[in-house]
């Protein structure tokens, strides 16, 4: 199953990166009108049909992958370094005021549902992809802090940490050179599982109009565009929706595979 996940993810990345070359109608990715072919059902030229202004759904999905991947990658890039660092610092200093301060703040952030906060933020600020990413990032780091906190607070009692302390190594060395390398596998597993979730939330925001803005082809935006024409012109919504499913499923399968792989390595 994890191989399927890996293949799916690689395929999506390939399609996203080379979208202008792979897509049959690259111009359809932005503002483009072809009323002659509007709302065409799936056919040989338009395998997934066209939307109400005549744009090729399949081409737009390829470009939509770009926004999804950017969302996933940027959010994780923003979230993982601070989340992990805070978890390491709190875990290593377990039982001190620093631990209490970091972990209580983390708890407060964890208590807010990410989608709700993202909705609130994006409706106050300009709704666009950038603000959606910021909003999701703000809610996502505590999960990494939590994960790493648990690992670090166990690892700090290992004798190799005591040895480093007896030698007189700096706290920075102990946290980043002794403890962090032992947290890498769970962090990577969580990241690969999270990409799917972040993409899903990004698509949800796009669906309610707070993420990728038309005429750009966000997958969620496309689902929302076609929702009005259900069920008669079903292809406008259904194919982008299926694309979301495939992306999320691909990353989740890959994440499961990585977890099994790391578990086998540890055992």
């Amino acid at each position, binding site marked *: 199953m994890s191989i399927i996940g890996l293949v799916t993810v690689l395929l999506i990345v390939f399609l996203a990166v080379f979208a202008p070359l792979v897509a049959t109608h690259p111009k359809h990715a932005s503002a483009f009108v072809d009323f002659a072919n509007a709302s065409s059902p799936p056919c040989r030229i338009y395998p997934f049909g066209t939307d109400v202004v005549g744009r090729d759904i399949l081409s737009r999905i390829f470009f939509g992958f770009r926004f999804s991947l950017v969302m996933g990658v940027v959010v994780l890039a923003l979230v993982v370094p601070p989340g992990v660092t805070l978890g390491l610092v709190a875990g290593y200093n377990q039982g001190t005021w620093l631990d209490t301060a970091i972990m209580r703040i983390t708890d407060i952030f964890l208590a807010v549902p990410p989608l709700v906060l993202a909705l609130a933020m994006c409706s106050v600020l300009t709704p666009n992809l950038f603000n959606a990413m910021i909003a999701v990032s703000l809610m996502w780091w505590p999960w990494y802090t939590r994960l790493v906190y648990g690992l670090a607070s166990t690892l700090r009692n*290992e*004798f*190799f940490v005591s*040895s480093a*302390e*007896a030698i007189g190594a700096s706290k920075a060395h102990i946290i980043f050179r002794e403890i962090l390398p032992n947290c890498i596998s769970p962090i990577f597993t969580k990241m690969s599982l999270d990409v799917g979730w972040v993409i899903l939330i990004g698509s949800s925001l796009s669906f309610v109009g707070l993420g990728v803005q038309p005429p750009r082809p966000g997958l969620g935006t496309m689902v929302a565009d076609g929702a009005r024409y259900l069920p008669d012109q079903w292809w406008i919504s259904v194919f982008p929706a299926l694309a979301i499913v495939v992306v999320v499923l691909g990353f989740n399968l890959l994440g499961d595979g990585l977890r099994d792989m790391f578990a086998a390595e540890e055992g």
Partner: protein
Amino acid sequence: MTTDILTVADLKKYFVIGHSGILKREPITVKAVDGISFGVREGETFGLVGESGSGKSTVAYTTIGMYRPTEGSISFRGRSLFDGNKERPLAIKKEIQIVFQDPGSSLNPRRSIKQILELPLQVHRQDENRLEQVVRLLEMVELPPDYMQKYPQMLGGGEKQMVAIARALATDPSFIILDEPTSALDVSIQAKIINLLIRLQNEFHLSYLFITHDLSLMRNVASRVAIMYLGKICEVAEAAEFFRNPYHPYTRMLLSSIPVISEEEEKLKPKKIISTGEIPSPVNVPTGCSFHLRCPAKLNVCSEVDPVMVEIEGQTGLARHTVRCHLYGQAG
């Protein structure tokens, strides 16, 4: 007259493990170490022996600085190791190093042997050529230089322990705590590690605090031996005196339970004393002498009054011999 390099004075380490009562919150403590004093002399091996749960590892961990003492003091060359809440200075950390029992846990699985051995060099000797130093450290513990590139999990238990010893030597210390350095290893490797430790001690004039539950090992290794029972020291003596002429009933029990092969060895042992019972929980320390529940020579006073350390004339000449038992009164 040799001087003490490490002095432990009335050291107590209690751990709070919970609270009793709902309104009156009385802390429940484990008295892991309950008032022990001893000195380790320059260049000697001081053997601290006890069953598991006797608090001997707590002494090691407190000395290296993993715990702060509840009461009492530890000083190194006359300088206290616990100066308020301040971090121990690097100059003292350099002098005192430790080898832990389980080399599997004391070496970071994600760091190569080279990285592991480089750390103390980075911290303590910035100017020298590190690669050369790492090779030299590996040579000291009889490992080939190409082990540098390996990771701990590629090594056997004995080899890992050798790396741990090399790491302890890397700061060029004068005092090393050996916390059961051989008890996690195969018997065939134990002798090799012990010989290595003795050779290194002579070569670098090291002082050892050797913590173990293996009393027979101490006969060959230690200059002096102390027996610990439930956080307290029962008896301290020069090794030769200790094995020939044990006073404390607990020591006799331990010595008589060492398995031996030859008749001559059997003759050296005190007469057979059957070991009874097990070490009680240090949460609920018996009143009086903590050993009285298992003691074959129990007096009435033993269950009420905790005996104090007294010095008695050793039978092997000038050897000092101290024991904590009511059988040997103040008169000695």
